[in-house]
């Protein structure tokens, strides 16, 4: 393998990793509040289509400034994924619907909304062919000026700004969860809501906030996918759903630690793309190779349940409903 090939592989691993890292970070925040949200793929769909819709109308309306497109699509993406999170939060917390079933429904709904608008937005607006938002996308993939100085420069600076944003979010989340009072309260809610409630922490408010903020972060994963990874277009192939489930898997792989999600995401990206560079793979064995991220996650899941190390366990209240009068 040449140096150039290795660089390409690492860079595509980082781009791929950023999508699932953002999804996983959102899910970590939500799971820390005790909710297992299987709606992450749906929320990533919503975040993706929200950004695309804003950018599309901005560009169809004659907008030419990449930065305005960036701002609009970013805000709209956050809004869409927050709404998705709000539906999930309202159903699971206020109406006490089952978390798993609500999450799966959100995945169906989000996928439907995104793929419907992604495929028909252009037709509905009277255009022809595929939707495309090149101006807005150019703002997402504008490389920093340092970007072209040698291998190291390309490795460190050759990414859209959201790749760095994801790392910042991960580090900030680690600080929030471990070093701030609100973060500790949030973890208490996820570990044992009854105890947290007795200590005067508002379980409902913490859960709502965590789910909505987590959804916004996860939605950014979808936004990064449309704007950066596939360069401001749309493909109705359900890739985001697969990536969303991989994000849920990454949460386990990272054992609910935001910073571990960074290298875990890049590792997943590396494993996912490595087949391109392995000589002599036939088309069928290639498919077996793509199984690896899931097999690795499964092995991690089994190992953490075998070792029972306390700091690697899922939040104790994960997936369980909390209703004060039930005790």
């Amino acid at each position: 393998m040449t140096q150039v090939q290795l660089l390409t592989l690492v860079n595509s691993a980082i781009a791929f990793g950023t999508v699932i890292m953002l999804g996983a970070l959102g899910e970590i925040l939500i799971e820390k509040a005790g909710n297992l949200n299987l709606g992450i793929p749906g929320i990533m769909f919503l975040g993706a289509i929200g950004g695309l819709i804003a950018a599309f109308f901005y560009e169809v309306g004659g907008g030419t400034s990449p930065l305005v497109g960036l701002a609009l699509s970013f805000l709209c993406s956050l809004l869409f994924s927050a709404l998705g999170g709000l539906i999930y939060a309202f159903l699971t917390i206020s109406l006490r619907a089952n978390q798993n079933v609500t999450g799966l429904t959100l995945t169906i709904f989000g996928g439907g909304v995104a793929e419907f608008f992604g495929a028909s937005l252009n037709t509905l607006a009277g255009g022809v062919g595929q939707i495309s938002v090149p101006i807005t996308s150019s703002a997402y993939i504008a490389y920093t000026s340092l970007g072209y100085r040698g291998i190291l420069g390309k490795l460190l600076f050759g990414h859209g700004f959201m790749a760095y944003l994801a790392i910042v979010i991960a580090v900030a989340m680690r600080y929030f969860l471990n070093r701030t009072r609100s973060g500790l309260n949030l973890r208490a809610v996820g570990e044992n809501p009854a105890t947290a409630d007795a200590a005067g922490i508002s379980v409902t408010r913490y859960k709502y906030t965590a789910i909505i903020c987590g959804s916004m972060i996860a939605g950014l994963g979808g936004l990064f996918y449309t704007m950066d990874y596939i360069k401001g277009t749309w493909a109705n192939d359900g890739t985001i759903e697969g990536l969303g489930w991989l994000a849920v898997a990454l949460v386990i792989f990272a054992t609910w630690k935001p910073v571990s999600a960074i290298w875990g995401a890049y590792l997943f990206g590396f494993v996912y793309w490595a087949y391109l560079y392995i000589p002599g793979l036939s088309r069928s064995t290639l498919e077996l190779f793509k199984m690896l991220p899931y097999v690795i996650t499964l092995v991690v899941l089994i190992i953490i349940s075998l070792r029972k190390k306390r700091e690697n366990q899922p939040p104790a209240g994960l997936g369980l409903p909390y209703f004060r009068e039930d005790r």
Partner: protein
Amino acid sequence: MRKPTAAHEPLIRMAKRGEALPAWQSWGIRILAFLLSLVVSGIVIVAISGLNPTTVFATMAQGAIGTNKRMWVTIRDAMTLLCIAVGLAPAFKMRFWNIGAEGQILVGAIASAACMIYLNTLPPVLLILVMIVSSLIAGGIWGLFPGLFKARWNTNETLFTLMMNYIAIQLTSFFVAKWENPFGSNSVGIINSQTKAGWLPNLLSSGYNGDYGWNVIIVLIVTVVMYLYMTKSKHGYEIAVIGDSENTARYAGIRVNRAYVRTIVLSGAICGLAGFVAVSGASHSISTDTAGGRGFTAIIVAWLAQFNSVVMVIFSFLLVFLQKGAQAIASSYNLNQEVSEMITGIILFFLLGSEFFVNYTVHFRGKKVSKA
């Protein structure tokens, strides 16, 4: 620390109902929620397409049951969905979160397709029987792993079965690439299109895919047997007790771990059988879309029906009807057919939310009356 405030009654207060609502009221709430969801999705469709809602619903009905052929396709798909839901019900009833139906369907489908390809010289009836058994075994094995780990080490089954889905999807891609026909098409094509070996035959009519009567018979047999198993057998009783309280079950001397493994293997096996029905009775081919998200939809069917077999039949038909109807709208008005997923999502949100009003009452401040 926050200052203690004087006790006051909150604006809205929720309480669990003291006694369960009579059946007609609880179903009334659900039906009301369903009608409400139809109104909302009607508004959405009209807003998107600018069509008259009555035209929309007429087009839906036409698309789902308008012709004999469409009617049979709706029945066929509802039966496949029902089969999966019936398979999932026992696992969910004991609070074993098997979200791996998607994978279990696929391995069942792989096993059936393999028999069709490699054993196509067997006598027809024998071949079908071999396919049924092998799909049951394949699905059962796919359920066995998460079951064993859950029973032995309490490994989280939701996440385990989720990963098994993706392993099954890649396994399917592997076999699709291996069996592809014609070469380079990246699809398996119709298996045994000449001899029709391993195809479920027509029951009532002749001609190519004239009806899907055998699908109905197989799935209804499974449904009835499962109903009897769940309500009349000792195993079914154990499942119900574990689902209500695992500790009570332990105290009563039920071997919980054994019940976990047994039930999840059964659950996986029936989902595997659904894979057989999908391959042998419907597509006569296999692809990664053979399960097509139905493993997830069926969870919602089973859950909303509260594992009641009759209600599961109704829900399966309802969801498939909506999907076919929405696809008809999409194709006649040049919209994307994903609109059906969106509408399904809206309806399910309403139905999920309605369960709250079945189980809880809402009190407003200052009023003594309860609102349901």
